[in-house]
């Protein structure tokens, strides 16, 4: 039992922004008020900010992709974050080892992270890596947007079959939701091509990108999964691509869900470029921001770029090949049979680069102008940069002065190609809590997370920030305080004290079981046929709960 006393609690879900005590019992927030302090570990949080544990909605923290990146980049692992001792050694510059990922997250108050792209064929590997990340809770989203069976069901216009297939895969793979990456484009890459608009057709199948996206939204809503479909749009990283993003968002028109969005568009920064080429590339956020703010069925995350080293890694095979050609950097490609692809290319974001500077600004425009209830902080780790710089992003959003200072570092081109210089808004602490806690929890459908109401997971963070005396001009102090939590409590255990790891526990891996809502028999013949072309036997396909360290099944029925 832990009592966090007298802290300044900010909990937008429960409308709290005031000094109060928090009582933790059996790993949950309790509303009991008869508390014997002698039986509790008491944390005095007087004059400190107390919030729920943060949630990273989109970070490539596990799976074949990041691990291939590790194997390709030994130069990333010369930075020592923690020597071996009571806890594990932790190393990595922007690519981190599994132990380092868990430790670094909780040090800055994050207690949950979502691996957003797992090829189903490789998902057992994803779970093994997730199981090696200490402390935090996690989940994985299998990839659907380039799967031959998905094309087949969409070509047959059979949403019921598609929904059955989705629930079959989620159960088999212990996945949490539906990820879509460059729908149709990755399949086209198998023929050396790509998909450039939502009207492009998939080779060999008579379906368009538009059909794939709307089909998957409908199937996802038929299942009413906790999370909506989670899309990485076509044309990522191309000047002028904001139009494709807007076209994609409009596909959600008329489809509604009372609890949440029906379309989550991820790392939007990479898909919000204007211009016709690299010479006139600029910010294309304006229309996107308008559309997201007026829609109640679309959410986004930022995809902030951090100046410095990064490693791009996506299921977007053709994009990664183009990036390899552009940068002449080393390149990993992994074509996954009849299902998806993968690419990895290292990259350095330089403030001296006009394009990189504009990218940096685009994400901040999204962070400042999109309603915090519909927006989440992300770097698309490790694509935009390391997740351990989230405090930097939060502070930039909180402090105009910090932004101005950073803009001086960036290329002048930003001044005319982006809107950021004219934005005076400073986000409040409550906004930041929304963009890191309540919004990702609601978008993901994780109702025990992102708030501190009764019964919520006891993921609690105490920061050395006094909201009553908050001054955004003191950005260095703010960033430091957000980087290094005074306390992080995970599921009722103190895991961080004064910015140092204090406890090592294993978190849960959540997955969604929607099989009660579907009938597997209707796709039986299709599966039988499909497994003729797979190289893993159907009986040996999938991940069993007993192989996982701490699986948590979330049944929708």
């Amino acid at each position: 039992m832990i009592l966090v006393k007298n802290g300044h609690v900010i909990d937008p879900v429960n409308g709290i922004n005031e000094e109060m005590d928090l009582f933790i019992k059996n790993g949950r927030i309790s509303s009991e008020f008869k508390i014997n302090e002698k039986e509790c570990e008491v944390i005095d949080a007087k004059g400190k900010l107390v919030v729920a544990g943060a949630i990273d909605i989109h970070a490539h923290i596990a799976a074949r992709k990041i691990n291939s990146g590790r194997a390709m980049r030994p130069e990333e692992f010369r930075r020592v974050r923690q020597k071996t001792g009571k806890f594990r050694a932790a190393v990595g510059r922007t690519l981190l080892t599994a132990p380092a990922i868990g430790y670094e997250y909780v040090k800055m108050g994050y207690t949950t992270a979502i691996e957003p792209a797992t090829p189903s064929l490789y998902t057992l590997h994803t779970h093994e890596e997730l199981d090696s990340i200490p402390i935090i809770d996690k989940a994985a989203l299998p990839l659907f947007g380039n799967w031959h069976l998905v094309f087949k069901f969409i070509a047959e216009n059979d949403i019921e079959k598609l929904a059955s297939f989705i629930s079959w895969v989620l159960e088999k793979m212990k996945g949490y939701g539906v990820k879509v990456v460059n729908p149709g484009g990755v399949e086209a890459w198998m023929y050396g091509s790509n998909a450039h608009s939502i009207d492009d057709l998939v080779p060999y199948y008579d379906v368009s990108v538009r059909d794939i996206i709307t089909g998957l939204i409908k199937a996802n809503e038929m299942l009413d999964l906790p999370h909506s479909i989670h899309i990485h749009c076509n044309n990522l990283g191309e000047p002028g691509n904001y139009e494709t993003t807007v076209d994609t968002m409009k596909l959600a028109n008329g489809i509604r869900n009372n609890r949440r969005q029906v379309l989550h568009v991820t790392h939007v920064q990479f898909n919000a470029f204007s211009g016709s080429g690299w010479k006139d590339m600029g910010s294309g956020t304006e229309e996107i921001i308008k559309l997201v703010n007026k829609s109640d069925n679309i959410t986004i995350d930022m995809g902030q770029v951090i100046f410095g080293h990064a490693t791009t890694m996506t299921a977007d095979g053709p994009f990664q090949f183009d990036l390899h050609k552009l940068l002449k950097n080393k390149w990993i490609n992994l074509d996954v049979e009849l299902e998806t692809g993968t690419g990895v290319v290292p990259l350095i974001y330089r403030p001296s680069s006009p394009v990189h500077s504009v990218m940096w600004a685009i994400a901040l425009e999204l962070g400042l102008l999109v309603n915090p209830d519909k927006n989440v902080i992300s770097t698309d780790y490790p694509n935009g940069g390391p997740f351990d710089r989230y405090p930097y992003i939060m502070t930039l959003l909180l402090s105009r002065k910090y932004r101005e200072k950073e803009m001086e570092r960036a290329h002048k081109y930003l001044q005319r190609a982006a809107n950021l210089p004219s934005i005076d808004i400073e986000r409040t602490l409550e906004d930041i809590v929304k963009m890191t806690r309540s919004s990702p929890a609601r978008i993901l459908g994780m109702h025990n997370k992102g708030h501190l109401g009764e019964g919520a997971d006891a993921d609690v963070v105490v920061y050395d920030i006094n909201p009553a005396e908050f001054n955004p001009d003191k950005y260095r102090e703010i960033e430091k305080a957000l980087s290094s939590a005074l306390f992080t409590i995970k599921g009722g255990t103190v895991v961080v004290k004064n910015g140092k790891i204090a406890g090592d526990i294993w978190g849960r891996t959540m997955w969604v079981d929607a099989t009660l809502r579907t009938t597997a028999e209707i796709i039986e013949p299709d599966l039988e046929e499909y497994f003729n072309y797979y190289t893993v036997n159907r009986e040996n396909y999938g991940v069993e709960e007993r192989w996982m360290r701490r699986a948590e099944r979330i049944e929708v029925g």
Partner: protein
Amino acid sequence: MENVTCTFCGAVCDDLYFDGDEFRTKDFCPLGEAKFSRKKRIEYPTIDGKKVSYEEAVERAAEILHNSKRPLLFGWSSTVNEAIRLGVILAEKVRGIYDQCASVCHAPSVLAMIEEGIASGSLGQIKNRTDLAIFWGCNPVEAHPRHPTRYSVMARGLLTKGRADRKVVVVDVRKTVSALMASHFIQVKPGTDYLVFSAMRALMEGYEDAVPEEVGGVRKEKLIEFVEMIKSAKYITILFGLGIAHTRGHDRNVENVIKLVQLINRYTRCILQPMRGHFNVVGAGEVAAWECGFEWAVDFSRGYPRFAPSEFTGVEALLRKDCDAALIVASDPAAHFPRAAVEQLKRIPVIQIDPFPNMTTLLSKVVIPCAISGIEAEGTAYRMDGVPIRVKKVVESEYWSDEEILEKMLEKVLKLRED
């Protein structure tokens, strides 16, 4: 039992029949059949040849590792990921070296990947799409006997329906039995692969004038024909083996074929696939990568991982006399390391964990028998393309699994650290 997974080679076939009561097999290749047959076992744990309990053997092993200055923890390619992960943690906690069989196998290919990445794909890409398969310096008929039928040469796929839809080329220094299944055989001189790849890259880009009349014993016209064949194919897979990685040029050969594949992808589609040997040699690298950042040749002496293949592979650490004890798991370095490295292995205390007596047993101080991974113990293994496959327990056994032994050993070591 149906759908049994075979734990011999990197092809990890999962469509086999095995009767564990009578040790009857169906559909296995000769290698798998041998794997799933009854063999002489190490019967009980020993210290200096004397029978001891599992507990005593594990305790002594932990003491040796704890008391040495830089123990070498080597092997891992024939066990499951669960055991490998404990091995990496054990290496970290005793501040020793983690190295695995890749360092006498495809490690040069991973070194090449550090320089250039790799354009690769899962084996189903060969089966379903590949219309030109090139086997370079590998001999699947002898090393991965079911690879040609299951995945590459004869496999029936979605877009390429079988052998008739595929051209098959074998490139090697000698005409192997695998060359018999090819439509074309190209013989290169030993140690010239690097030069041939450079010439092919130049020809592909139209720099014919820079290429001499003969490269690596192959006439220029023949290379031009080969390059044209590649350019006109739709989806090419180049499968390569130790014929490239174990000869003069090592990783640089592989680096050059990776560059060739990068170039081919500007004209058509092409992937590259190393033919990995042991059933879980890929896992031995992948698990280490996520636990400590590096796949092999990792030294933890300073309390954090450092990577140096020129100093910390099993062979280098032994040649340099840079380890003073060794834990050998699921491997037989006394049979497979060069003589000079085995000499050092004979001088230091060796702990062995293995189901079968082998040459390393003959020079080990502590011998701990274990259940056979994938027959008597279950766990996860990674096929040569990295696809994870759960290998099964199909026979009951009294032996402790690698995972149990290592878990106990790690517990002991942690206790010794506290004292």
